[in-house]
């Protein structure tokens, strides 16, 4: 004779209890109690076999993937607004038009770098000298320090906008997972823990961190995807045991 093992009990702790189950109206109550007990047991089980909090990487692995750490610290965060415009006939001023967020970032006095479109390796240093709204757009005049080449009118412009000194991590330290952002923080030598962070402005090389890590924490830059996959593999392996 075979006995059917209820799923709840199967996930529970002891099959022997069920053989002693009383018949009648108490069955439902007891089953409910067992069910709740089994939920509790599931909790214990997940507690004893929980996913790893961190992952460990050996020195040779770290060397193979050029694992690199960078300190979370307060540093200048820059956004380079990249755009294109036309140079005037004197070869001195490039005029560009901006819209949206980019337009709000640009101010007179900011440093800029300009390149003739056909001459990408020939760079002219410049400054934003005028920012003026014109209808839905913003007109930006960028004055070159030297006289630009006039072989063609088209110029590429990079305006360096500074966002001040902010607590930041390198862009590549951040792994985006759906709507969340994770960095791998070193907890001890060779141990790395995924840490949720909330972020602010994202600059050229660094992203402002609003919460999740603190000044001085070491986060993985190079090799963050390797650490992430190690962490997930170990978690999956433990869950399968």
């Amino acid at each position, binding site marked *: 004779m075979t006995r059917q093992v209820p799923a709840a009990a199967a996930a529970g702790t002891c099959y022997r209890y069920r053989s002693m189950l009383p018949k009648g109206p108490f069955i439902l109550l007891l089953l409910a109690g067992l069910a709740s007990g089994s939920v509790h047991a599931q909790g214990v089980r997940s507690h004893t076999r929980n996913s790893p909090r961190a992952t460990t990487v050996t020195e040779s692995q770290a060397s193979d993937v*050029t694992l*690199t*750490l*960078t300190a979370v610290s307060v540093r*200048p965060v*820059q956004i380079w607004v990249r755009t294109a415009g036309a140079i005037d006939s004197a070869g001195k001023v490039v005029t560009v038009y901006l819209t949206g967020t980019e337009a709000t970032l640009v101010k007179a006095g900011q*440093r800029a*770098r300009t*390149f003739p479109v*056909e*001459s*990408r*390796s*020939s*760079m*002219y*240093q410049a400054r934003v000298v005028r920012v003026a709204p014109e209808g839905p757009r913003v007109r930006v005049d960028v004055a070159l*320090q*030297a*006289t630009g*080449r006039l072989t063609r009118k088209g110029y590429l412009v990079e305006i*360096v906008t500074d966002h001040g000194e902010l607590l930041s991590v*390198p862009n*590549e330290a951040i792994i985006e997972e759906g709507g969340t952002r994770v960095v791998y923080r070193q907890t001890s030598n060779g141990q790395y823990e995924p840490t949720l962070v909330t972020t602010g402005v994202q600059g*050229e*090389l*660094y992203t402002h961190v609003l919460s999740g890590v603190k000044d001085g924490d070491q986060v993985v*830059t*190079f090799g963050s995807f390797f650490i992430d996959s190690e962490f997930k593999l170990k978690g999956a392996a433990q869950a399968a045991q």
Partner: protein
Amino acid sequence: MFATFNVMRRLIVGAGVAAAAASGALATVSAQAPKVLVTDPTSVVMIVNRDSNDIGFMDIKTKKMIANVFLGNNVNPHMVMMSPDGRYVVTGGTRANKAYIIDARTLQLVKTINVDIAPEHLSFSPDSRWYYQGNPDGDSISVIDMVSLTKIKTIPGFAEPLNVTFLPDGSKAYVGNYGAHWVGVVDVRRHELLKKIQIAGMPGNAKLDPDKYLGEIKGINIAALSNDGKLLYAADGDLGVVGVIDPVEDKVVKVIRVGKDPWRIYMNHDGKYAITPNNGDETISIIDLQTNKVAATLEAGPDMTGVNYAAGKAFVISSTSGFVYVYDMKTLRPAGRMKIGTNIQLETATTDTKDETLYLADSTENAVVIINAKNQTFEKITKVGLYPWGTHVMDSKDNYCH
């Protein structure tokens, strides 16, 4: 009561520790927060002082020294460069086998990194991410990650690598090997040597006279990029030629014969011409970049170490003669020479971003010579440091070393 006392005691101790930590932290902040000395990275000239082992910072407007950042004893810095984002200033210490990273705003030495043997010339990727430090005696390039400020790799396989040139998109870097006759192509994504581009065939008598051709090789100093970023030009000292490289195919598409023992090639800012100073016959060759032919060969001086362009002229530095030779780049004719001094040694110069002024290192006088390119006059700023070896202005088109 006892429990309450314990809780109270914990709170008091905790508060005390917190207060102490806070005051300590404040003290640390106030003690460590360095003063910002340079608010605009384009406002300074950097000077490599070889014998005083420091990097000098001179204000362009006032012509006064702001600071000299001491690197350490017996460092012998060789070349200095500011990152394109204006965040850091770096140099390689030739005798210390180290790279030095200075905060460009506070002028504090923030990191020292071990590299290979005798680091000299260096370059930044256009996005400021990678600092490639050439190590001529180690025959390697050290790759420094400017985000983590760590050396992540040493690329071996070069032969006395001198200068590194990144493509404008940062995908590849070209390395001049002064101890060979080829240009190394580096994949910047993987930081690996991809290819060796031989500039020209070795003459047959290399086998007959190995001392001349294999002992003291004068190969390729730099592969310099044309203004449109489409071609690279590499002069070879022993072969007396300039090889033109197409970076799409990484092949030599033309070989241009120039004078004897060209030191390297310098691109004019308007993209029309380039000059090789030929120390073997004390001439300069002016190459027309449209036709890739020599447009003029003109007399110059001995031991030429650099060429700068400003105000429509070329300024050729003759290191041991104390003269700077000037050429009109429209007529391609000599435009006089400037006597900077007697019994002095001139090194290299940088040009300001207005293309008006040159800053020339005058090593034996511990000075920087500021040359007005338009009227060809100059003034000397002395006591900039000991044995200034080179100068640098952020984003200058003439940033080089020797």
